[in-house]
């Protein structure tokens, strides 16, 4: 540094008492993708893990001062319950998010394609459905589906019970469907109109243009927002606990109750819930970014 700034042969840094505009190192201008939820998770600093673990570890110690319940006891309780919470609880969070995403994506793609139909009769209802489900609170949709769907279906003389978690899948797949529809529509609209014209002038039909020219280009554009919605959906699955679906939070609450509702247990148990969600979503977020980089193509 000195060498470059100084006068050759004289090893002093140039200095002045006049006001000087120092080099300004602003962060590079943000991309819209930086606002994505998965981006935000992936960019969590490393110390966050330690801070989270430390809080979980320290909390019982703080509360122990006020009661006879020791830290060791609190963690022994958590340790006892972890297998139950994970296999009977978190497993369902993952299952619900997975199925809701699968069904939501399937319907969302159809809905998104309907939205760009040249026929108003198809386009208009699709737009209405999308806007309604996109702008409804998820919890309300969950309540409606849970209360509207029957407990059991009779097929002939057979009675099939519908478990709550399946209803939760249907409830959550509605907003996902609407949002994926927007992702699909947005991706299609983001393809330059010249691509449509070029295909048209090569005698492609609209269908052929869509499937062979437009959609293959959309696929890559859709992956980051799609994974972003998956991360959001996974984070939303604890909503189901409000409706009594057996999942991570429901079981954590039950476990705390079984341990006599000791306040010292709150942070270890819910902290564990935070950790396990974070541990699940963080790799997904990192993978989203890795995929984005790999698919970054010059147009």
């Amino acid at each position, binding site marked *: 540094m000195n060498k470059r700034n100084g006068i050759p042969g004289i090893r002093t840094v140039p200095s002045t008492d006049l006001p000087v505009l120092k080099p300004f190192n602003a962060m590079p201008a943000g991309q819209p993708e930086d606002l994505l939820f998965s981006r935000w998770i992936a960019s969590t600093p490393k110390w966050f893990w330690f801070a989270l673990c430390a809080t979980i570890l320290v909390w019982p110690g703080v509360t122990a001062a006020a009661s006879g319940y020791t830290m060791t006891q609190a963690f022994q309780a958590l340790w006892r319950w972890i297998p139950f919470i994970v296999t009977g609880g978190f497993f369902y969070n993952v299952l619900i998010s997975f199925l809701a995403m699968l069904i939501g994506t399937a319907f969302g793609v159809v809905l998104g394609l309907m939205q760009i139909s040249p026929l108003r009769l198809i386009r208009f209802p699709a737009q209405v459905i999308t806007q309604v489900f996109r702008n409804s609170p998820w919890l309300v949709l969950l309540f409606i589906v849970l209360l509207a769907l029957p407990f059991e279906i009779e097929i002939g003389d057979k009675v099939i019970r519908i478990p709550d978690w399946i209803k939760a899948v249907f409830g959550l797949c509605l907003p996902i469907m609407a949002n994926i529809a927007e992702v699909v529509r947005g991706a299609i609209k983001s393809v*330059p109109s*010249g*691509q449509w*014209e*070029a*295909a*048209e*002038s*090569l*005698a*492609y*039909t609209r269908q*052929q243009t869509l499937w*062979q*020219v437009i959609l*293959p*280009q959309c696929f890559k554009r859709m992956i980051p927002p799609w994974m972003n919605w998956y991360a959001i959906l996974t984070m939303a699955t604890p909503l189901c606990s409000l409706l009594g679906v057996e999942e991570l939070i429901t079981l954590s609450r039950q476990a705390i109750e079984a341990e006599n509702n000791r306040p010292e247990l709150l942070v270890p148990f819910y902290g564990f819930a935070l950790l396990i969600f974070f541990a699940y979503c963080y790799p997904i977020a990192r993978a989203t970014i890795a995929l984005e980089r790999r698919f970054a*193509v*010059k*147009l």
Partner: protein
Amino acid sequence: MSTQSWTDSQPIVSIKDVHKSFGNLEVLKGISLDVMKGEVVCIIGPSGSGKSTLIRCINALNDIQSGSIEVQGIEVNDKALNKLELRKKVGMVFQQYNLFPHKTALENVMMAPIKVLKQSPADVEKRARELIAKVRLQGKEESYPGELSGGQQQRVAIARSLAMNPDVMLFDEVTAALDPETVKEVLVTIKDLAEEGMTCMLVTHEMGFAKEIADHIYFTDRGVIVEHGPPTTFFDQAKDERTREFLSQIL
């Protein structure tokens, strides 16, 4: 109406009193021109004079309000127009190349004949390689459009259009987005085509090229053809004041 009734002695493209508006803005105000088979026609004129719109109407990319456009006897201004049949006869090259970025150069050329004309992939590939060689891009078959320069992409776009075996080629300001060094390689390609007897209609700002290649030049301004003629008389003995003014600014 049908292709059978059309013979080589009639114009391959016949435009009669075409009117076209975008909303309240009338872009074409009664344009008429004929193009014979094998002819090279250049359309020049200031920006916004309706050149590109006219050429896009021939391909039914834009519809017209009144008048008639016939391509080999097919009436374009017809509700029952079979657009696919028309577009098999008319190839088009755009200013922005519009190659499909997810396909290699070779695939770009091969796609339409295989998917649209249902020709056998082996035959199409052989022809596509010949076309790529013809536009002087041997060795670039497996390159993606993003890896090619503007001029190279534009030549792939020409090859892609030729793969459909069109009878008429439309060029819509194909060199306008290129840097001066690569303009020449594209123009050479078009010249080769014209010399082989392909019917070409070009919208261009390359006056020198138009003079060299065109059989007939049309000058449009504010939606009408102001002046037209073979290049020799057009450039040297323009009668209309607007044409002379335009030419003096450009040449």
